[in-house]
């Protein structure tokens, strides 16, 4: 409780108002101990009381703070107020009315997803442009971090073009699954989403355009890694071009044959992939059969496990 008092007092001092410590203490004590109000709620109540009393607009109290500037890849805590210097790498469909924009921001260290609330009344950002994002708050949902831009945030365009850093990840293991939605697929002409049964999640029944991709799972016996191959990589790797895939589908009267053929080529075999990490996926830049010699491993394992009688055998 003492801590809260100190914080409130210090914050009001910054705004040039001296609030009596004992007064804060009494109010907090009454709320927390007598009326069993949770400490955070009590803090809010006391702060609002003094704001009213001294006629300070709420926005002054909550925005004036400067938050520390951090790198995108350093975001490791939920609910922290930070400032980012980032390029807008990608804008996604803001698929809810309360969202004005959503997408991906990036700096030298990596990328992070962002959402901008409609209520925040902030200017629109443009893909490919760089900005200073002041006072954004981190959030953690299902083990992934993102930042949200709210009323107190600020977006300042900067002239510099930030190079977005990409860390190339490598993974080797066996492909244990090629997932549905791989092979020959159709995409929505408006938003490029993959269609499910000829319909787009956003735009309904549309005349889709064909594409080729592979979503697969690599597994090394200790970890799993989702991988995503675009049309270019898929064509080069499987030798099946988009035209060839369409031909196969027409002949079989079934789009699924392409997936079956790809499964037969890939599942159960060992590969090394490299590419950028995005969410839970590696966006594959290169994929090769794993042909690392196994003789060394054999010698090492034998050395580690052999017992006298096993060597003689």
């Amino acid at each position, binding site marked *: 409780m003492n801590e809260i008092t100190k914080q409130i007092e210090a914050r009001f001092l910054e705004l040039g108002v001296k609030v009596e410590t004992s007064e804060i203490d009494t109010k907090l004590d009454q709320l927390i101990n007598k009326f069993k109000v949770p400490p955070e709620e009590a803090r809010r109540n006391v702060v609002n009381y003094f704001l009213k009393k001294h006629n300070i607009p709420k926005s002054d109290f909550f925005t004036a703070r400067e938050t520390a500037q951090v790198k995108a890849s350093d975001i490791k805590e939920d609910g922290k107020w930070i400032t980012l210097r980032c390029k807008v790498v990608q804008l996604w469909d803001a698929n809810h009315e309360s969202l004005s924009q959503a997408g991906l921001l990036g700096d030298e260290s990596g990328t992070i997803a962002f959402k901008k609330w409609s209520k925040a009344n902030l200017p629109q950002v443009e893909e490919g442009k760089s900005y200073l994002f002041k006072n954004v708050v981190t959030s953690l949902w*299902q083990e992934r971090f993102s930042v949200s831009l709210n009323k107190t945030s600020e977006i300042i365009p900067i002239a510099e073009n930030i190079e977005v850093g990409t860390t190339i990840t490598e993974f080797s293991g066996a492909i244990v699954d090629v997932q549905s939605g791989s092979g020959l697929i159709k995409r929505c002409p408006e938003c490029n989403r993959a269609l499910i049964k000829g319909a787009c999640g956003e735009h309904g029944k549309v005349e889709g355009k064909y594409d080729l991709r592979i979503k697969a799972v690599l597994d090394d016996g200790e*970890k799993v890694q989702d991988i995503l191959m675009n049309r270019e990589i898929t064509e080069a790797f499987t030798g099946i071009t988009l035209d060839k895939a369409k031909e196969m589908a027409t002949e079989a009267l079934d789009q699924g044959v392409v997936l079956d053929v790809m499964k037969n080529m890939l599942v*159960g075999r060992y590969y090394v992939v490299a590419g950028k990490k995005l969410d839970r996926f590696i966006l594959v830049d290169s994929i090769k059969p*794993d042909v690392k010699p*196994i003789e060394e491993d054999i010698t090492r394992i034998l050395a580690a*496990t052999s017992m006298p009688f096993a060597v003689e055998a």
Partner: protein
Amino acid sequence: MAENGSGYVREVAHRVFAAELKESNLQTKEGQDEQFPKQFLLTPTGAKCNRVFIVGTLTETENIGNETDFWRGRIVDPTGAFYVTAGQYQQEAAQVLAKTAPPEFIAVVGKPTVFTTKEGNVLASIKAESMHVVDAATRDRWVVETANLTAKRIAKLNGNEPDAVKAREHYSTDVEQYKAMVSMAVESMRGQ
């Protein structure tokens, strides 16, 4: 960990030799979903398997179903044999067993299960999720990888990790026996 929006986490496919899987009989159920908990089979060296990946030589196939097809295949690795099954809910895998003429190298991704025979013996088998014919190089790589991962588990077996402790208590695992299995499996690769 791989995860998608629904909170689903894909389980790792463990690498286990036939001789080890054969000795496994400790099944546990876990997971928040009460109606469909995840089933795990703990092996003597402490691999907690919801899924396994094996590569070996398919030596026999048989349709043991009565009215509906139910295929069973025997797959051999350097330490022994796995039984792999595929029924009406594993159509793709069942098709592979139906049309592949043994012997052939084969890779299987599947769920390990335990069943009791009429004689009361407890046997482990693998319910196939997918099955594909592969080449000899893939099989060799699997043997070495499985030896490597098994050796790693053996090295941790005296540690405090819950799976290791449980395996030790349940099986009284003979470490030397499994070390011998691993070196025998790897040794078999040298003669080639």
